[in-house]
């Protein structure tokens, strides 16, 4: 392997393994020493980069990395045995010659590493941490995202992300958040906030062309990976929402690669080449949707997943079952009256009952503060005017949308629509 490929390999390893490693090390050090776990992983990678650049890459780079991190952890807890307090229930094993190695073997086993990542999710999504910080911390500790990448994903500054991370770690330390999956009647509510964070993470990745596409797709993959860990955890009895969220993510992600053309222009669903929709992801989506329904409970995730399933099941855009989709939006708006849901419902309504009725619906939300500066509201309204052969009003709406749209690729799409208004 050439010298130049070593940094690439390390970068790849970091993305793949750092979440697993940080989780295991946090098990050892306790959540109050989260920064220490992150430092050990960082140090191990720097060591790998240095050594491999001069001596070549070992056969099993990930195994090597874990061994180095293991030894570093062992040294730290023995060197700082009396200097620090560790809340961890396992650290004392590392102080004895008889138990150190068996304990390390145990906590570095595949099953424990999976469980530790789950514990880490509940730690990052603890209610004492603000929603913004929950997502940033999850990306940093569990998904191996760097601070610049997180900043890019959220269209904010690195300084801002750093602040969120510091605040989150502080909260976790002050509140003495335990490193465990909650049990009993706490589990349900805590699981909800973990799922919300994962859903947010997925949406950040899925929202059209907000920056780098590769990173965005990885966000979606990570959201799915974390949910799969939850789905595999035995002690959660009611997995209805987990399965529904997985279905929703797989079904939507199956369309990820068909959403733009070769030059990066966004394509509407009507324009997309359906043969590019990922059949494996669709199958998984339908599989989880079926499993989620077995619980006989309906959440927002179920409805959104079912809507997505109707799109996946349609042979082409024209044969989309809008009637069923509309009735799902009706159900959704019973659970959540948010204007964004009503906006999407209006689209289904226009397909079923025509644009006049849909426009009347939009009237009901146009003064809403979260809608008034939202470009998609105006581009949707323009579509309805076009349906009604009113290019003048459509043009007016699209111009407003272009003025409000923060992202260039979406503006390109809107300008393309403007052509239709002549």
């Amino acid at each position, binding site marked *: 392997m050439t010298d130049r490929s070593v940094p690439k390999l390390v970068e790849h390893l970091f993305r793949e393994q750092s979440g697993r490693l940080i989780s295991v090390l946090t098990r050892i050090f306790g959540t109050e020493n989260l920064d220490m776990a992150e430092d050990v992983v960082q140090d191990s990678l720097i060591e790998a980069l240095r050594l491999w650049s001069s001596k070549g890459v070992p056969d099993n780079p990930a195994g090597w990395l874990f061994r180095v991190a293991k030894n570093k952890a062992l040294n730290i807890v023995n060197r700082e045995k009396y200097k620090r307090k560790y809340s961890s229930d396992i650290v004392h*094993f590392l102080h*004895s*010659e008889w*138990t150190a190695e*068996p*304990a390390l073997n145990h906590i570095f086993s595949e099953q424990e590493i999976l469980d530790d990542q789950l514990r880490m999710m509940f730690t990052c999504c603890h209610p004492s941490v603000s929603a913004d910080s929950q997502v940033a911390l999850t990306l940093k500790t569990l998904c191996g995202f760097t601070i610049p990448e997180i900043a890019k994903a959220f269209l904010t500054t690195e300084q801002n992300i750093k602040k969120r991370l510091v605040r989150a770690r502080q909260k976790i330390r002050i509140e003495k958040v335990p490193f465990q999956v909650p049990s009993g009647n706490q589990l349900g509510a805590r699981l909800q906030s973990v799922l919300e964070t994962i859903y947010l993470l997925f949406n950040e990745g899925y929202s059209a062309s907000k920056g780098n596409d590769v990173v965005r797709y990885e966000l979606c993959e990570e959201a799915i990976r974390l949910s799969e860990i939850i789905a595999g955890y035995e002690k959660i009895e009611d997995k209805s929402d987990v399965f529904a969220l997985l279905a929703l993510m797989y079904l939507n992600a199956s369309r990820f690669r068909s959403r733009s053309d070769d030059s990066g222009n966004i394509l509407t669903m009507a324009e997309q080449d359906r043969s590019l929709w990922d059949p494996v992801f669709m199958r998984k989506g339908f599989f989880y949707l079926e499993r989620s329904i077995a619980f006989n409970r309906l959440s927002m995730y179920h409805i959104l997943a079912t809507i997505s399933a109707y799109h996946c099941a349609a042979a082409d855009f024209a044969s989309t079952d809008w009637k069923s989709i509309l009735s799902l939006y009706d159900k959704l708006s019973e659970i959540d009256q948010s204007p964004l849901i009503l906006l999407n419902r209006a689209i289904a309504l226009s397909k079923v009952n025509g644009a006049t009725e849909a426009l009347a619906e939009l009237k009901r939300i146009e003064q809403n503060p979260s809608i008034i500066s939202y470009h998609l509201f105006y581009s949707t309204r323009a579509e309805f005017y076009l349906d009604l052969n009113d290019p003048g009003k459509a043009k007016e709406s699209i111009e407003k949308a272009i003025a409000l749209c923060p992202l260039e690729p979406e503006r390109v799409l809107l300008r393309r629509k403007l052509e239709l208004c002549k």
Partner: protein
Amino acid sequence: MQDYLLLIRTEGDVWTDLSPQQLNEHIAKGTSYIGNLIKEGKLKSAAPLDVASKTTTDGNGTIKDGPFNETKEVIAGYFHIVAENMDEALEIAKANPIFSDIPTKIEVHQMRPIGG
């Protein structure tokens, strides 16, 4: 569940009697035995003890060095485990691979709980 203290009694500094290969094999067996106890949540702690020890009898400063030549017997280490009952604690003690390599006695003591 009850707490039990297992005292590992051997004669002298036994580890030096093993060849490097025997010692490696012994360590591998011990690692897997202890690993299983940790996995099952039965081990609270365990550690080898230094052969050198001192005994104090009372507060008037009489301190004797050990181990004592009369017996050469030493406590080589201890296990603090949890078990359903004495039978299970004995089972755990009997399964210790130390027996196959080193002449050993393991004393099993139940730790008396508060109010017990």
